[in-house]
């Protein structure tokens, strides 16, 4: 498997067969037992009857990416499995559990020479009143991994309590039957005992983590228009914003959503919306408005494969260009990218802090992989990044006309008057304006305000959080977003081979940081750019703004096929200086 430290299990089934639920239960049971884990999902667009798979990777150490291959593949049924066979790689050492009544395993299984063990999941389930094949699959996987049967049953009882006693009993019996049948299946690997740790641990998705990070950063208003794969951010915020005394408003479309958060932020409330590519496209005009009117807002863009409707349920890093360059005119704003499930919390909180501090829009470029992945992680540390907007304090009425909302002197960020503040009345405007906010078409004011909006972002010190830089090898793997964890794992393997590399992943994509970037690459002669886009958007963005060493290579391809750690590892080891 190329990795003796982790075991990976894939559950496959047609939509509604329970593949996702089963994976979630396995992850939670293993996490409760003390292991680390990551679950990602791959589904078709249909709600029912399409293909669905949950991919669970468990280890004694934190897990941030998918494996190269799956050790165990369980087909609850194979009805539509061929549609994503390529996403679930198996090898000659893999164990495939197949129900003879569930159809044929996809051709990739035979091609890989994987060992297939037939288990009549459906028939076994039928023997149990209200029994379901996925619970038998769960029992098999839990047994093969060495999870304690009683602990798994306790968890299921808790999770299914609201489904009634019969359902709980059926599940318990199904799991038991799975354990029993798995006793006869040879599987030569075990996870080993989990490492003892006193750390508080969470089981959380990237989308949920982003939502909590937003609230921690001070967000108290969200506008919501549902879109896959971002909806969970909004669904988590709806009740929790209310608990925090805030509001979530469902918008009629994404045009309304972004304008609602601009209005709320104008009123002094830190505000956010979450969307994906098609929604971001609709929001771009108002993104320019927030930039010009200097209204802080946060947009979480959970990227999916594009263009157009693309593949709504699957990941890609193709929104970089629109996030950075989407606006007409020169409209500098913040673009940041979380690097793991847990980092969705920090990065969204940081984005809120930056937006509020700099009175500018911030886009958080998450993606389907990290947004919808669930992971057992150590509780992210509390950080002090809480939005603190420079506000105008009450002025005497007679000096009201002296207030310059968009003053360019005396610092780069000008205090913002919040409605209700006496003497601070001004009109926020998307028209080119004077320092007071009065519309103008003069060249002088235009340049002055363009300079102001650029300079306030450029002059700010973003600290060490701007990028992850690890190691000191000459060969630098330069990547971003959710691929950071994959690159980290590839680099660790290369180190085991005796090859030292540097991991360099900017968290801050805009504004660019020429000095810090040059310092990070000082003396390096080889750079491997790794990204998931068809047009190598990240590489071209870097080329536009930074000096890369002459010896630069690119590993880039579109979604939805994940880039595996072995691919990066191969690119490293095959690159002889």
């Amino acid at each position, binding site marked *: 498997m190329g990795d003796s430290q982790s075991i990976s299990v894939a559950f496959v089934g047609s939509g509604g067969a329970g593949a996702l639920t089963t994976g979630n239960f396995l992850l939670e049971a293993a996490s409760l037992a003390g292991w680390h884990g990551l679950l990602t999902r791959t589904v078709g667009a249909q709600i029912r009857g399409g293909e669905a798979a949950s991919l669970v990777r468990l280890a004694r150490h934190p897990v941030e990416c998918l494996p190269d291959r799956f050790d165990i593949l369980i087909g609850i049924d194979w009805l539509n499995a061929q549609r994503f066979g390529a996403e679930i790689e198996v090898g000659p050492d893999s164990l495939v559990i197949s129900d003879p009544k569930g159809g044929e395993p996809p051709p990739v299984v035979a091609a890989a020479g994987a060992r297939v063990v037939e288990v009549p999941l459906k028939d076994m389930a039928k023997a149990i009143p209200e029994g379901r094949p996925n619970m038998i699959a769960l029992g098999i996987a839990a047994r093969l991994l060495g999870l304690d049967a009683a602990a798994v049953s306790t968890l299921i009882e808790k999770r299914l309590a609201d489904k009634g006693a019969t359902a709980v009993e059926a599940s318990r019996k199904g799991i038991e039957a799975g354990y029993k049948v798995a006793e006869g299946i040879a599987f030569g690997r075990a996870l080993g005992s989990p490492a003892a740790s006193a750390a508080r641990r*969470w089981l*959380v998705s990237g989308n949920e983590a982003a939502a909590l990070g937003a*609230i921690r950063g001070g967000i108290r208003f969200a506008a919501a228009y549902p879109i896959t794969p971002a909806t969970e951010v909004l669904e988590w915020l709806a009740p929790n914003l209310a608990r*925090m005394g805030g509001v979530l408003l469902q918008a*009629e479309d994404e045009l309304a959503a972004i304008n*609602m958060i601009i*209005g709320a932020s104008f009123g002094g409330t830190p505000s956010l919306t979450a969307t994906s590519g098609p929604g971001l496209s609709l929001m771009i005009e*108002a993104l320019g408005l927030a930039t010009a009117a200097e209204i802080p807002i946060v947009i979480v863009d959970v990227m999916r494969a594009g263009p157009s409707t693309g593949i709504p349920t699957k990941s890609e890093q193709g929104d970089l260009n629109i996030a950075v360059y989407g606006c007409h005119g020169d409209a500098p704003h913040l673009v940041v990218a979380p690097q793991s499930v847990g980092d969705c919390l920090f990065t969204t909180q940081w984005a809120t802090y930056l937006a509020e501090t700099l009175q500018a829009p911030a886009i958080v470029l998450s993606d389907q992989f990290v947004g919808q992945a669930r992971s057992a992680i150590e509780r992210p540390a509390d950080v002090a990044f809480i939005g603190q907007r420079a506000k105008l304090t009450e002025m005497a009425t007679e000096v009201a006309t002296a207030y310059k909302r968009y003053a360019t002197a005396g610092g780069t960020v000008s205090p913002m008057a919040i409605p209700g503040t006496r003497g601070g009345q001004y009109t926020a405007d998307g028209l080119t304006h004077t320092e007071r906010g009065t519309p103008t078409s003069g060249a002088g004011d235009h340049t002055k305000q363009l300079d102001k909006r650029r300079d306030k972002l450029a002059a700010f010190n973003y600290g060490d959080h701007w990028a992850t830089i690890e190691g000191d090898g000459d060969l630098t793997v330069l990547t971003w977003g959710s691929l950071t964890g994959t690159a980290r794992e590839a680099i660790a393997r290369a180190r085991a081979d005796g090859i030292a590399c540097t991991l360099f992943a900017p968290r801050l994509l805009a504004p660019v940081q020429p000095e810090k970037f040059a310092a990070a690459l000082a003396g390096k002669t080889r750079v491997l750019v790794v990204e998931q886009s068809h047009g190598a958007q990240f590489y071209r963005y870097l080329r536009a703004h930074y000096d890369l060493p002459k010896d630069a290579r690119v590993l880039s391809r579109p979604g939805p096929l994940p880039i595996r750690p072995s691919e990066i590892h191969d690119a490293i080891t095959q690159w002889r200086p």
Partner: protein
Amino acid sequence: MATLDNRLACKPADFKSDVNPIWCPGCGDYHVLLSFTRAFAQLGLPPERIAVISGIGCSSRIPAYTNCYGFHGVHGRSLALAAGLKVTRPDLTVVVASGDGDGYSIGGNHFLHACRRNIDMTYVVMDNRIYGMTKGQPSPTTEPEFDTALSPGGTGVSPFHPLVIALASGANFVARCFSGEINETTTTLVEAIRHPGFSFVEILSPCVTFRPDEREWKSLVHPAPVAATSDPAKAARRIMTDDGFNIGILYRGNRKPYQPPVGPASVDICDLEKDFEL
């Protein structure tokens, strides 16, 4: 609601900014601005407690001409922006200014949902049945035979009926005004702002540059012959069958405005993490 402070009550002039309007001489919108400042003074609100929100077009220039807080946003989205402001700042008085292009064409969808949502705000559409800022193209309220460069010989498309659409969508207060009748418009605006929920005031506001024929509106308008009703079906029937120049408050509803609670947190922020703890 804002409490009045110890300053003397504001006069209409206190609500007027020192920015000179870009409107053409004779534009109906000057009168609307006058009615705005008079209505604000009558309401006894200090200017900093009022937010005037707009989109793009001649009418949407109005926020900067007041001495209130203002937002001149993008084309067609003023109602959405105002919704975000009002639900988070229910203490403010929110007035949205728009025109027939901004409000009924590019902003049409937001109009439906703002009526439906019934947030406590007042929506003023200055209807001149033409795109003025872009020099005379047909809007959703332009007559089908009206000849323009973009629609030689007329659009051939019937105008739509904003007041009926507002009723069907759930607006809580519907009125029609004529910009030239400043006293009546002022009174109507005061009532619209005081009325809870989403109040919709259409103001016929002539564009003397691209629709010189609208100078005639002065002689066409007349007070609505009957008092306002609280029955939307009755109001819709009346509006559908009137001559389009009935002036006055046509509908007063009593739907409860939408305002989710805002304020202090009911939990400690750390409690939110409990969802995730293993």
